[in-house]
């Protein structure tokens, strides 16, 4: 990837971060918490995938490296999800 591609990614990341704050400043967190929650988290996930895929070059590595990363993530999510569910 050349610097132009990297710049495009950067602009998108910057915009998404701003969008997350806008969701809050617009009062959505107060009025419709769970919708705001979903929107903000989805934006974070998209940003994270973007950084991993392009800045960390996962797109161009063998799939196995992605599986490694996904493995760690799934382990952490399993812990968080099951633990939280256990006390609901």
């Amino acid at each position, binding site marked *: 990837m*050349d*610097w132009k591609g*990297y*710049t495009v*990614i*950067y602009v998108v*990341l*910057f915009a998404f*971060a*701003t969008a*997350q*704050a806008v*969701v*809050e*400043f617009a009062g959505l*967190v107060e009025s419709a*918490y769970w919708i*705001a*929650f979903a929107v*903000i*988290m989805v*934006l*974070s996930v998209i*940003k*994270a995938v973007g*950084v*991993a895929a392009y*800045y*960390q*070059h996962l797109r161009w*590595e*063998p*799939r*196995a*490296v992605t599986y*490694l*990363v996904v*493995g*760690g*993530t799934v*382990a*952490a*999510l*399993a*812990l*968080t999800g*099951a*633990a*939280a*569910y*256990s*006390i*609901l």
Partner: protein
Amino acid sequence: MSHDHGLPPKSSVSRWFLTTNHKDIGVLYLITALFFLVFGGVLALLFRLELITPGADLLGQMGYNQAVSTHGLLMVFWFISPFAFGFANYLVPLQIGADDLAFPRLNALSYWLYLFSGLLMGVSFFQGTTFAGGWTMYAPLNTPAYIPGEGLGATSVVLALIMFTAAVTLGSVNFLTTMYRMRAEGLRMRDIPIFSLSINLTVWMMLFAFAALLAALMILASDHILGTTYFQYSIDGTTMATDADNPGASLLWAHLFWFFGHPEVYIVFFPALGVMAECFQTFTGRRLVGRKWFIISMVLVAIQSFVVWMHHMFLTGINLPIKTIFMATTIGISLPFDLMVFSLIYTMAKGRVRFTTPFLFSLGALILFIIGGITGVFLGAIVLDYQFRGTYWVVAHFHYVMVAGATALFGGLYYWYPKITGKMYNERLGQIQFGVYFLGFNLLYFPMFIAWETPRRVFVYPESLQIWHSMATVGGFILGASFLLMFYNLFVSLWRGEDAGDNPWAYATSAEWAVSSPPPLENFPGVPSYATGKLEFLDDETVAERTERASGAGHGHAATDGGTAADGGAVTTRAAATATAMEPAHETAGEEHASHASFWPFLVSLGGFVTFLGLSGVRTGSVVYLSMAAIGGLVTFGSLFGMTREPFHAPEMAIAERWPFSSVEKMKLGMWTFLASDIVLFGAFIGSYAFVRVAYGWTAWHHDLIPAEHVTMPGLINTYLLLTSSFLVVLAMVAAERESKRGTVAALVGTFALGVGFLINKGLEWQHLFHIHSEAFPNGWNLSTNIASSTFYLTTGLHGAHVTIGLIICAYMAVRAWNGAYQGDDRAIEYFGLYWHFVDIVWLFLFPLFYIL
């Protein structure tokens, strides 16, 4: 001298401080682990004596609690896994056809961190009292508020465990990189000897499980040292039964610990399983029956081990549906185990058995394991566990399984003793030891099933059970005595034993038996290859030929990228793999020899030891402790720097089997594996936050616990700063590729500046929050104010620490770039970038979770 590449002979003491060779380090691990076995064993004998009669009349109450707790910790952490990894260090490179591990200095560092962590554990006994809260370290019992006295010894033990975990994490990264980058040509993953395969799966579990443990320990250490309140039910002094302001406190520890703890039992057992399989094959003269299914079962168990942890929590307040699910997964995990057990039995039935000492120990281990496994299934049933939980049934169960593992490993010690020493032990005496061992073991642990109503970890029990406990104590001493036979046998055989030759065992086929005993420093007489279906050693010419052919045929990178890149250098405990990226890639022209000696790993670990010892007492404000922390920190940092500057060559193999990571150069693979464990570390921190917040009430949290002054803006600014710095790192790469020195330097300096800006902004924000005076928070909002402030400061603080480490590396790289480095070869920048972008990604989640939602 020159022949051994700067490494003194084995008879010289200095060799053992300098060596980075996997075989030397394997021996160091074995001996050190046996030392901790004796340490833990003596403690056990002490409290078995105590238990001859009900009541604490020998050790006293606190003495008993300390002996039981440290016995458990020493055996589980400092003996059994390191013992297995002594074999792993020695044998895995030999079995897969490598000349060493991928990062030899990192391997030495793992060992020294392990040793010093154990010493720290030992020192804790002299800080008043040591840790006394049970090896599971349940909360809130083990927070300073509930520990009698100053509790410095307990803090030291927590820190010792952190140091141990660091060693394990470095080791996991090292082994995985080795096994995926350095297998002999033609050796597919599924074809590597079963012991190495079991280590591979063990290491995968370690990578993820120990990261979760690290999170748990860091949080506990923070409660001890910094005064956060993760594991405290009530912070403002109201009673915890009626008005807890952190209702998730105790369950949080249970979840974190057992998420690690269940995989840990397989981490302990898998290497033993590998040893058993090797010994069964050799001494029955049969290939493992159903080898493919055996392997599939191991893979299944390794994965499933992460989804059964709540069977340790059946008696806590978790809900019934989740208990039921975990009962089902627990039954599920015993199925693949059955398959493995049958495979071993069937191998034995079909072969011609030779009852040598290693085989006896392996067979004994199998029998013990079957008993242990069956009694475990009882515990996995919710209704039965309601009865058995907290009794000696559990104690008996887990000793049958865990010590079964140890039994197999002792078999391994006899099995590989001739390879490691070149001498044969006394067979007759070995068989006698097995007899005494097996008798002692069963006399020690079986009565515990009968006396199962004894409450666990308590020194009083019903008088009627005394006979069983007396039997157990006698058994304990018989078991202990059997080790005297073993030590005697192995020690004397060093001088009197017959020469073992290359391969004393008929039918032993794995590659370590194809070389001399002990093997030469660089293992093989040529480059090992299985390309023709059997092991051959290629000379330089053939290698050169094949490399050319491979690149000609478009196999690409895999076969041609050998001969470059130095061993991963500078390492802090967490930044291990990170710093490897800044190591200059020493281009080694063909004939350059690998290095085998470095003093820095020892010094780094010594510094770490002093630092942690100091940290254990800083909360007392004592000058001694404070200065130890400061001096230790300096030594650690200085020696890390020295290690980075030291030229050290660990060439990649010219030809090797590298599926499925063939185009991922070893430093990059090391970095990615490290990051995977860091994902779990941060995941567990974020998971802890989510958990205590759910326990408190997700939406009430923000309103009740967080001051209005805690606003979004500083977080948003920091998000911008980090995103921009990540962008600059990729620009630095682009510039280095284009050989623009100015561009590279500018981008790196920019990254550094933005990172510093991030930290300053955070510092200002924290200062502000510490000192607010609002109606709800008249005394500011600091680490101890409430559970929300604790999670906020600790999680973002851990992230800040990652930023700081990144900045140190970044500054170093900027200076090197200024001196002309990286031009035309941007790999080092790329590896640093992997770390830096990861830190950025973490922030992308911390920002919304801690600032917006």
